[in-house]
């Protein structure tokens, strides 16, 4: 991994656990962040994002209030708060596949499993910097492209309904099959 100067990158972090906020704050400062705002819930984060713009959001899934971290992700992607294409790193101790898929479908950028380490936090930030994904807007989704890897030699099967449209300009020499979903 490359070393980056993160002193000009601002980050808003949302976690209802006071100790976890302290921990992440120390870790992020150690990694070089100078501008970190720590909020204890979605409402405080919304207030903060109304007055200041941030480059990255780091949001814990389980929050004490009425709204969860996932609700906040959805609000951002709907354009209700902050910049709609804000990179979002979702924090959670629930690493079951179903949870990862749910977070992905809500439009997160990166998934960060707790317990965290300096390496795992930094690696997600580097992923945001070095591997930005294009955004996709459909009737039911707005967020980073959920297909992380593009295999130019992929020849199908094409399972998405949208693939039928994609093929005309995206699939190159792929041999299309009828869309199945």
């Amino acid at each position, binding site marked *: 991994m490359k070393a980056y100067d993160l002193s000009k990158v601002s980050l808003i972090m949302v976690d209802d656990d006071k100790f976890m906020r302290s921990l992440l704050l120390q870790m992020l400062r150690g990694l070089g962040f100078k501008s970190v705002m720590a909020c204890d819930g979605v409402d405080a984060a919304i207030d903060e994002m109304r007055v200041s713009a941030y480059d990255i959001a780091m949001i814990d899934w389980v929050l004490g209030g009425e709204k969860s971290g996932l609700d906040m992700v959805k609000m951002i992607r709907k354009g209700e708060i902050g910049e709609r294409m804000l*990179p979002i790193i979702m924090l959670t101790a629930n690493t079951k596949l179903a949870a990862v898929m749910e977070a992905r479908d809500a439009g997160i950028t990166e998934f960060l499993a707790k317990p965290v380490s300096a390496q795992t936090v930094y690696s997600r930030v580097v992923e945001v910097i070095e591997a930005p994904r294009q955004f996709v807007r459909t009737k039911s989704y707005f967020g980073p492209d959920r297909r992380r890897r593009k295999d130019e030699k992929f020849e199908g099967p094409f399972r998405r309904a949208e693939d039928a449209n994609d093929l005309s300009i995206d699939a190159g020499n792929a041999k299309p099959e009828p869309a199945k979903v």
Partner: protein
Amino acid sequence: MAVSDSPKPAGPGPQSEPPNHELIPNPNPVSLKAAPMPGRMVEELFARAEKAVATLQGEFTQILAKEATRGEKALQIAKAEPGKRAAQLARLRGIWHDLRGKGSTMGYPLVSTICDLGCDYLDAAPKDAQETVEIADKFAETLRVVVAKDLKSSTDATGKVLMATLRQVAEMAERKAKEAKA
């Protein structure tokens, strides 16, 4: 890979269906603000971050003891008052969920493992069964030992025995919980 800011064409001809998605390039403003530091090693950044986190060690040890006690109290109530069992087990799960998210970061990987196994068990087990309380108590007991002896590593002799036993209990308990549900 072609990307466009406007809806993609859905094929030739005026009768084509309207596109059902659009692809939007990511302007990635973060990359403009994060400057590479040639000659600097990431290990330096990690070491600095870990040193900063280590300043919280004392605070975590206190939290661990306090939360383990809160968990014990929840279990005591669940044992004594069947009507409150489900609520107290949910409370216990919340405590373990928080601890599993911090333990390893703060140098207590055993705490994270025990609480992770405990959460998985409680997710699978019937919420109002006396047996669930009894098995949950085994996890709590293991946590009690870790806290009392300040055990940090799962690789020393005590840690290994503790974890091997607990994994066996967890596997058996999860299997029984699934059978009961089925």
